């Protein structure tokens, strides 16, 4: 009897430790706020917030993982914004999908949310932009490659494969695309800078100087 209780106790403690460890080592929070809005945009189905969640200013980026200009912005403008504003807690950023460029775009967006399930949305997001190849639908973002990216990040592949193959986040991506349509976003990347006094739209992969000119007076 005592032996059974001991084994049961060990199992319970093991499960508790595993759950605690998995939550405490997670590098980001999962977006579970179904009522989240930034300005007039419903970002409830968008990415987790990058940066200080209570920052007064938010950049909402609409992008496509196959878009070359999004890639330009990611590599040329975003690092300065991250360094000067996000890492200092002045602003935060939310990514919304406007996955329209090819057949692989919606799947790549869905894959990012499958990675979010395991707490690695932004790592996966970064990996996609760092792995982008010039050809749209050229195979670099097909299902096999998306799974390979997940594997390289050490994600649980059973969970990831089942998430991606089932199209679990198909409607989530469609919702984000719908938000882009409703807010007049006519290309990627498209941005809204949302502050306490309203929101300003910026179209295209604009340089850091433009973001700085808009952000500095708002801070």
């Amino acid at each position, binding site marked *: 009897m005592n032996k059974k209780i001991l084994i049961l106790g060990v199992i319970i403690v093991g499960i508790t430790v595993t759950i605690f460890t998995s939550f405490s080592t997670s590098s980001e929070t999962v977006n579970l706020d179904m009522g989240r809005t930034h300005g007039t945009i419903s970002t409830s189905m968008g990415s987790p917030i990058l940066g200080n969640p209570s920052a007064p200013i938010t950049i909402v980026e609409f992008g496509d993982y196959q878009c070359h200009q999004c890639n330009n912005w990611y590599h040329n403008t975003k690092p300065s914004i991250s360094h000067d504003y996000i890492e200092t807690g002045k602003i935060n950023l939310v990514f919304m999908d406007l996955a*329209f460029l*090819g057949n692989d775009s919606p799947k790549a967006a869905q894959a990012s949310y499958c990675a979010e399930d395991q707490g690695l949305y932004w790592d996966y997001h970064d990996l996609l932009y760092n792995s982008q190849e010039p050809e749209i639908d050229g195979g670099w973002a097909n299902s096999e490659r998306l799974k390979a990216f997940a594997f390289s990040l050490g994600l649980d592949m059973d969970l990831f494969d089942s998430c991606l193959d089932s199209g679990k986040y198909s409607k989530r991506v469609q919702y984000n695309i719908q938000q882009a349509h409703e807010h007049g976003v006519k290309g990627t*990347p498209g941005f809204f800078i949302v502050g306490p006094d309203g929101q300003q739209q910026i179209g295209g992969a604009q340089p850091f100087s433009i973001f700085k000119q808009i952000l500095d007076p708002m801070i």
Partner: protein
Amino acid sequence: MTQAIKLVFSHSTYLAISFVIFASMLVGLLLLSEYIFLEPYVVSHLPPGTEFGLLLIVILSALSALVIPMNIFRISVLKSSKQKMNGSIFGSMIGSIAGACSCGPIGFALISTFGSIGATTTAFLTNYETPIRVVAIAVLTVTYFTTVKSLKIECKVNS
């Protein structure tokens, strides 16, 4: 060769046409390719790795501004055939639409309006942007030399 150019561009009308073509093509393509932005502030931007694309746009605009007025001159003044005009317009058109349909408003509108056909067209024009522009420049170059040759014959211009 230079005399053929002098003959056409000594007329202020053709010089003006050339300037309008160059300016409108250059500004239009720079806007579509996101080298310049007008809103919220006017700014130019040359991201690393896009220098060759900019060079192709400048060459394309310059060649269009050179070849199209020369052919207009041939047609209106010399009453020549319109065959070479078609070549210059074709070269300018395909060079302009290549890359213009990427992630920007034109590509978005094309895909939103025409669905999968628009998406396929957009993907093709984006994937082959550089080769298409190079072909367009080649077409315009060939058209330029054949136009100069025609002008020499038709106007008895000595090179």
